[in-house]
């Protein structure tokens, strides 16, 4: 009996090749999308779980109140770990101080590479999960030691033993390799921890840290910890809350520093803080794509059910005959379920093939490295369970509804199945298009927002700007470098500054000015620059003047951006005095706001003054009259003169600037990808349905043609119904899309408004797609030979 069912099911698939392909293909695409999204979400949710102490690892962070807003930071004073260890040691297994993770020059013999790594207290090897390939876990006990990740070790030593080799760090100190650990996987926050050196080494050549007058006064390191086995995160977090407050100066207390623990489980997905509250982060994307995934799946299932039920109506006669010759109802039910489950399982197999094909492409646009979980039983259970479920749902209508009729009724066609069943089908098609149109509008709004932020006035000229990290040597010889490069025409101008054009490396508080509320704690990005800064980046002086070498007193001068002038509420800012501690500075100029940090947020009040010692970055304006290649090689040659043992690295400011849009661009690309698939699936469904309707009305079309109907009239008759459905879908989708996208835009302080043309565009697009899809079928039907179609009855 079962074989008989399969045979008939299989033959039905083959007989209706076209609609079977649409049916199976559409469902497979939907399943593939859901699989991709599912794998991506799984990857996001399992982030950092590589570390066995995942549940216990935390980062020590602090909230501070600046300019009346609570800011949250990972930066801590260097004494944080030690202090917590001393005062709350029993609540923690480890509390470890660490530096930032950034590129250092590592060299071995004649090989030099920049690799990212951190200084860490030695127990880091116990806290994190490091699978040792060479050496032992206690490799950081000696001060002049270094532990390498596998890939770094391979760069320097190939497959050879690395233990005991002496390397040079930052061209300064010798360090001995004491361990090699397996690379941390991509799905970990500390993935770029490619080498670890002892914290004591850091202290040893930054002796000023130990000699700091107020060790709690600056925040420039990170602190990680592992909770004690029985400690509870929330309890410990509130216990240590005032650890900094109790140590800081009177001035420091105004910032209301509040120390707290941010668990590893939230590092990746919930890293955003808004005014002191953990407001999410990537978790928003997980939700967004989760919802899109559910919708795409819904679309595919709607299709599948629509087409399956539409096709099953053609089989009403079969049901009647089978009953007449003795089939029991249960046998018919089984037969239909069998068939739809077979089809959905075929779709599942096909979807796996699709995922294998799409995955590399998906990984590129989603910037992820997900893989299919071949070995994960949950994946299979979910996949197969889901296929069977879809099959059952799709089979319900034919199985239960058709089989319930008196045989004579279906045989005589006394029940006009089409008419009643068409209503749910219409609802399904409408909701399908409503979803697609919502996605189209959403995608356009995402792109519009990115566009809007990209076109935001920068306040400086980013083209041709490059940044190069300073070194002691190059800092000392900046004048020589500048003269040479200007002389050979490689650059227009260059400057040295605290922060590159796309980030803020330093902020300072403690400023005072005329009319300031004495209790208002402030904190401003504070940039030390050379006199040529403004000329290099092309800032726009609004009031007063730029720094100049002609004025000897400029070392005590400040330039403010417009936001700072507004924030300080200075009526006539130029010439006013700015005080910090017991020193006074004069405001000599106001510049137009420059977009340095988030393109979606207001520009922060910022200050500029002339530099007094080595700062972090050179910024060079390349000569537009010379090709980039030529000027870059000249720049490199000059820098190599001074940095003989460090690789030359320069960053283009416009590239760095584009990275600010990475996340939104990714969302946009993914949304576009899913929207495309959603439209594709909807079209498949529409196409299938249109062909079904055309087929169902073959006889009618034949008779009408015999009686003289034109192709145009028939096309109109067959397409009209669908167009009406799509128009209704537009009416439903527009308000929903507006509501959702308006909510999304609220995330951005600097945001576009949703233009009316977007929905017009989406609706016209949907209508065009519908007309093309439906016309293909209806014109085919309308043009067919009437005799042929009449004969089929």
């Amino acid at each position, binding site marked *: 009996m079962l074989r008989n069912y399969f045979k*008939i099911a299989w033959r039905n698939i083959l007989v209706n090749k076209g609609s079977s392909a649409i049916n199976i293909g559409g469902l497979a695409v939907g399943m593939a999308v859901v699989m991709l999204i599912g794998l991506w979400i799984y990857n996001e949710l399992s982030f950092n779980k590589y570390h066995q102490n995942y549940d216990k690892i935390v980062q020590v962070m602090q909230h501070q109140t600046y300019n009346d807003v609570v800011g949250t930071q990972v930066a801590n004073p260097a004494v944080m770990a030690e202090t917590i260890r001393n005062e709350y040691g029993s609540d923690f297994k480890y509390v470890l101080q660490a530096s930032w993770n950034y590129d250092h020059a590592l060299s071995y013999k004649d090989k030099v590479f920049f690799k990212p790594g951190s200084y860490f207290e030695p127990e880091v090897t116990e806290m994190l999960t490091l699978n040792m390939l060479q050496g032992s876990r206690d490799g950081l006990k000696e001060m002049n030691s270094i532990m390498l990740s596998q890939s770094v070790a391979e760069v320097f030593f190939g497959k050879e033993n690395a233990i005991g080799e002496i390397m040079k760090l930052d061209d300064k100190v010798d360090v001995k390799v004491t361990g090699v650990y397996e690379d941390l996987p991509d799905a970990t926050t500390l993935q770029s921890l490619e080498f670890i050196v002892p914290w004591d080494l850091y202290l040893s050549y930054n002796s000023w840290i130990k000699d700091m007058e107020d060790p709690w006064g600056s925040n420039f390191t990170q602190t990680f910890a592992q909770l004690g086995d029985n400690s509870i995160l929330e309890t410990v977090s509130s216990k240590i809350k005032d650890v900094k407050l109790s140590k800081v100066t009177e001035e420091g207390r105004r910032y209301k520093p509040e120390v707290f623990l941010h668990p590893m489980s939230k590092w990746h997905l919930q890293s955003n803080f808004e005014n002191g509250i953990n407001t999410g982060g990537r978790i928003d994307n997980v939700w967004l794509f989760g919802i899109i995934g559910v919708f795409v799946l819904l679309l595919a299932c709607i299709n599948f059910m629509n087409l399956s039920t539409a096709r099953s109506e053609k089989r009403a006669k*079969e049901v009647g005959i*089978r*009953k*007449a010759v003795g089939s*029991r109802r249960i*046998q018919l039910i089984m037969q239909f379920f069998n068939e739809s489950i077979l089809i959905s399982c075929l779709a599942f197999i096909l979807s796996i093939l699709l995922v294998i094909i799409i995955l590399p492409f998906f990984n590129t646009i989603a910037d992820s490295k997900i893989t299919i979980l071949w070995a994960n039983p949950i994946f299979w259970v979910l996949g197969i369970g889901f296929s069977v479920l879809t099959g059952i749902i799709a089979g319900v209508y034919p199985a239960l509804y058709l089989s319930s009729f008196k*045989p004579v009724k279906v045989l005589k066609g006394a029940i006009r199945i089409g008419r009643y069943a068409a209503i749910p089908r219409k609802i399904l098609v409408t909701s399908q298009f409503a979803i697609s149109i919502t996605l189209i509008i959403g995608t356009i709004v995402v792109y519009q927002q990115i566009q809007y932020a990209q076109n935001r006035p920068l306040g400086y000229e980013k083209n041709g700007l490059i940044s190069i990290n300073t070194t002691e040597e190059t800092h000392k010889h900046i004048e020589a470098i500048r003269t040479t490069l200007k002389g050979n025409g490689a650059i227009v101008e260059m400057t040295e500054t605290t922060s590159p054009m796309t980030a803020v490396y330093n902020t300072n508080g403690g400023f005072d000015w005329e009319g300031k509320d004495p209790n208002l704690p402030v904190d401003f990005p504070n940039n030390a620059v050379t006199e040529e800064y403004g000329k290099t980046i092309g800032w726009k002086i609004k009031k007063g003047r730029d720094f100049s070498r002609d004025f000897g007193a400029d070392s005590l001068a400040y330039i403010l951006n417009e936001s700072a002038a507004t924030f300080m509420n200075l009526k006539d800012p130029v010439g006013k005095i700015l005080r910090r501690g017991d020193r006074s500075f004069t405001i000599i100029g106001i510049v137009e706001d420059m977009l340095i940090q988030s393109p979606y947020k207001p520009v922060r009040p910022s200050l500029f003054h002339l530099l007094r010692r080595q700062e972090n970055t050179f910024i060079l304006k390349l000569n537009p009259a010379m090709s980039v290649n030529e000027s870059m090689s000249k720049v490199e040659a000059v820098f190599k003169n001074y940095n003989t043992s460090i690789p030359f690295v320069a960053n283009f400011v416009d590239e760095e600037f584009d990275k600010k849009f990475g996340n939104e661009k990714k969302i946009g690309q993914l949304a576009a990808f899913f929207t495309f698939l959603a439209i594709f699936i909807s079209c498949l469904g529409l196409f299938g349905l249109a062909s079904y309707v055309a087929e169902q009305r073959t006889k009618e079309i034949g008779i009408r043609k015999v009686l003289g109907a034109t192709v145009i009239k028939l096309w109109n008759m067959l397409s009209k119904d669908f167009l009406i459905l799509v128009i209704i879908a537009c009416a439903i989708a527009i308000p929903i899309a507006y509501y959702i996208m308006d909510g999304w835009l609220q995330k951005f302080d600097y945001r576009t408004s949703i233009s009316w043309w977007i929905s017009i565009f989406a609706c016209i697009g949907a209508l065009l797609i519908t007309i093309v899809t439906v016309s293909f079928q209806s014109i085919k039907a309308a043009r067919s030979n009437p005799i042929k179609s009449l004969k089929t009855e």
Partner: protein
Amino acid sequence: MIKIKDLEKYYKTEELQTIALNKLSFEVKQGEFIAVMGPSGCGKSTLLNILGMLDDSDGGSFIFNGEEVINYNERKRANIRKHNIGFVFQSFNLIDQLTVFENVELPLIYTGVKKAERKKKVHDVLEKMQIMHRRKHFPQQLSGGQQQRVAVARAVVNDPKLILADEPTGNLDSSNGNEVMELLTELNNQGATIIMVTHSEHDAKYSHRIIRMLDGQKVTENSLI
């Protein structure tokens, strides 16, 4: 074998009610061959559908093999049907997706006959109907007469005790028609009870008894033996 009394059937459409069967009563004994005749629309097909338990009646009594079946549910009817009744429809009603062989085999599958035996039985009846050479064809590939013969083959393959045939020769030329009638007579001789609807006086002569109907009622009943 069959006893119907005051059988009624109405068709209700929006405006009017059609009385398809109007207090129809008659009896059929085991082994009889009955012809039902009457003008188009007098209720012959309706009667056959009710006798074949494909449709409900709206009143009266229907005793089949001594059992009152008028209130039987779907399951019981299906059970009686598959073991006792073979059906030849006015409009063939073959399943398009199945071959000739498979169409004829269907009733045997539902009564649980073993595969080898099914094959033999189907082949026998196809031989008898002279469409053996067409067994792998699909219904659309056959002429009307050939389809009719497949429909008859399917009705008789299970050796049913009761054969209900709605104009079994309607689409056949006279020689093919006669063959179908010979076949029915032979089945009748082997013990099957046959109720056949026909417009042909010639075919009616094969029967034992003719029931003539008009407007859902029996008008006359004349025995030919």
